[in-house]
């Protein structure tokens, strides 16, 4: 855990987004409930928006810690997280496309599963980077 409040809240936010997203996707797949529409959107978006608000508040409350919380190593990890997110979505898309063509994945469900990967992959990368000491 880092003493920088902005970095701490960022880490907790990223872990929360990954946990909620992963739990929701696994629950959806395990229960075979299919795309649940707005329920998932509200849950995941609610966590993400809350995390964003908390991080914004932390930036306002602790302005003296912004610079070290966003130093060049963090920015490097942040850029890497988006690159990882891109390739994670590409890999998921191709996997689900193959599954759809093979008839084992419902096209609507495939599309539904792409968004959580897009949202959670960069957060997961940043969380791991922080836990490894490479993101403040």
């Amino acid at each position, binding site marked *: 855990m880092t003493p920088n409040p902005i*970095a701490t809240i960022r880490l907790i936010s990223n872990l929360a987004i990954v946990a909620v997203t992963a739990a929701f996707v696994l629950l959806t797949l395990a229960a075979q409930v299919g795309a649940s529409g707005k329920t998932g959107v509200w849950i995941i978006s609610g966590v993400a928006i809350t995390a964003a608000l908390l991080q914004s508040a932390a930036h306002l409350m602790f302005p003296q810690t912004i610079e070290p919380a966003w130093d*060049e190593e963090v920015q490097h990890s942040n850029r890497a997280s988006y690159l990882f997110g891109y390739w994670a979505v590409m890999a998921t898309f191709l996997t689900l496309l193959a599954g759809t063509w093979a008839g084992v994945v419902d096209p609507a469900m495939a599309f539904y599963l792409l968004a959580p990967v897009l949202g959670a992959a960069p957060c997961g990368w940043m969380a791991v980077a922080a836990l490894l000491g*490479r993101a403040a």
Partner: protein
Amino acid sequence: MHLRAHRTQAGLTQAQLAQAVGVSRKTVNTIENGVFIPSTLLALKLARHLAVGVEDLFALPGGE
């Protein structure tokens, strides 16, 4: 990497050096361990704060 040696010689902790150059303590730690390669700008800041040259802090691998 000779950053750790020069930092300890200057009597600074990682946190103190980090605060002086505007980065996190973990960034100083990863630089000292060779995990993260700093930008030229940060290398110059580190060198200036420790009152040494950049080449005193960093060297090419294998002494090239």
